[in-house]
């Protein structure tokens, strides 16, 4: 058998490299090179002039110096962190709460809830955003009119003049889209806790709380770590929700890192400055999700 295995896994062979070469080429070209270019770009002055001439002006750390000295940058960074924290907290708490209650639901209700969650999960981002925008539209909002019917007087209301209510709605769209994935993942993990373990714990005289702490919680912990990390990664870079809800021209009070970088690059054609913002955005994200990345690298190791 050894020789046969060797025929399948010959070591000094070009086969594996030929097999991964096309994928590697595309990934390096479309993802790898832009990462490298993002770094070089952030040290350059690169605008329309430079796109046409093709000759960038090297600035050293000038873009970063200018950014870090700009009070707006710090406002945007702080806003992005708060907004991300809010969305992650709401979607994880709501998702976990729902998943843990799902095991205690009547099977018909659980089935309908599960179907609803899948339906929401399947909604293309732009479809979901359009519907929410419609629900909170200025003139014909079902939400405003329902509130009015309950006896309040909101008349016609622009929900986005106030940034707090505006960000709450945008965060609501993001959380609404994220909760199904979180709930279903945690629920799947909960139902996969081996019965034998629970029975063994019960036989050994553990009460439900002890069972949760000693058996269920350790199994769920890695799932929570992954879900929280993924939520941070996704929510930190939220772009489309803000962009579409505010009609493709969000006012500066709505700038998050992603929008700020985008406006600098595509709005003002200051691609170098945009790249510097984007790079700082990646660094902030790396800092926050360091734990998760280390875990990913370990998985890569164990697979080799």
């Amino acid at each position, binding site marked *: 058998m050894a020789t*046969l295995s060797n*025929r399948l*896994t*010959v070591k000094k062979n070009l086969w*594996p490299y030929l*097999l*991964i070469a096309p*994928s*590697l080429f*595309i*990934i390096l070209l*479309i*993802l790898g090179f*832009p*990462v490298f*270019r*993002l770094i070089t770009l952030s040290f350059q002055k690169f605008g329309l002039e430079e*796109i046409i001439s093709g000759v960038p002006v090297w600035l050293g750390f000038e873009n970063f110096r200018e950014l870090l000295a700009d009070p707006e940058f710090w406002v945007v960074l702080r806003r992005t962190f708060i907004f991300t924290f809010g969305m992650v907290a709401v979607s994880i708490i709501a998702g976990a709460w*729902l998943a843990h*209650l*799902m*095991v*205690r*639901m*009547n099977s018909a*209700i659980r089935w309908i809830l599960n179907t*609803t969650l*899948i339906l*929401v*999960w*399947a*909604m*293309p*981002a*732009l*479809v*979901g955003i*359009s*519907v*929410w925008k*419609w*629900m909170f*539209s200025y003139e*014909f909002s079902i939400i405003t009119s329902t509130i009015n019917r309950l006896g309040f007087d909101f008349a*016609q209301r622009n929900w986005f003049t106030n940034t707090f209510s505006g960000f709450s709605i945008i965060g609501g769209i993001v959380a609404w889209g994220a909760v199904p994935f979180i709930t279903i993942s945690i629920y799947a993990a909960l139902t*996969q806790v081996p019965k034998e373990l629970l029975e063994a714990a019960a036989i050994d005289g553990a009460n439900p709380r002890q069972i949760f702490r000693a058996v269920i919680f350790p199994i769920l912990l890695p799932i929570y770590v992954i879900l929280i990390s*993924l939520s941070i990664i996704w929510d930190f*870079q939220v*772009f*489309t929700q803000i962009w579409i809800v505010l009609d493709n021209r969000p006012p500066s009070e709505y700038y998050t890192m992603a929008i700020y*970088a*985008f406006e600098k690059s*595509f709005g003002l054609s200051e*691609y170098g400055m945009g790249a510097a913002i984007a790079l700082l955005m990646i660094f902030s*994200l790396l800092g926050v999700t360091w734990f998760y*990345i280390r875990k*990913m*690298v370990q*998985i890569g190791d*164990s697979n080799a």
Partner: protein
Amino acid sequence: MHKRSSIFANISGVFAIVLMGFPVYWMVSTSLKKREEVISVDPRFLPSSLTLDNYRDAFAREGFATSLRNSIIVVLVTVVISLFLATFASVAIARTKFRGKKSFITSLLIVQMLPLSALIIPLFLLLTKLQLTNKLGGLAITYVAFILPFTIWTLRGFLANIPVDIEEAALVDGCTRTQAYRYVLLPLMAPGLVATAIFAFIQAWNEFLLAYIIMQSQDNLTLPVWLASFTTRTGTDWGPLMAASTVVAIPVVLFFSLIQKRIATGVTSGAVKG
């Protein structure tokens, strides 16, 4: 793990169903309402009568046919190419040993975390330089790059569960290695290929930001960008927008229900068990 149902859990469940389901209901019900009823300052939860006018208006709207065609082309090209390449790469990872494999796998995992809204700047400049903007091929190849890491990783998971012995048996029986892959391994991978194909389909069908930046001319819109075009400086055409949104969502909902289970466990189990 299921316990006796509790009233509190059931009430929460109903509450969650209403809260999560309402936007979907509101989209479909608005799409079936008459125009006067859609743009009413006192909207009703139930349509008084049903009509398909909004669907007719949406289909008649400029750009529907072209953006539908564009979306289908981009999705098909993306799915075929990414699956084809991912099959090869995943066989290499799951079935062979080679130097640099560790770094390849690690970079596959890391690359999936890169924020698109940060990469879009150099990506746009790169595609401009390669003259790939405003070309369906340029958009498709970009999608392939973004989808490949996940598809390779998922297919690798499927392959890891197929015993090597089966291919070895085929080799004993006189197959060449290529034949063993083609006639033995590939059919066994079929369920994995279908699941990843659907995943790639959904990603490419739903994607907005890249298409919005790369495809700027009116003939090159994809469906999500077309949806965004319902809002102009003079306002939004809500009824037809809800009808169009429903139409764009339907294929995804259908495909999604097919692979939902696999994705739910796939994302987390791949990362936990490795």
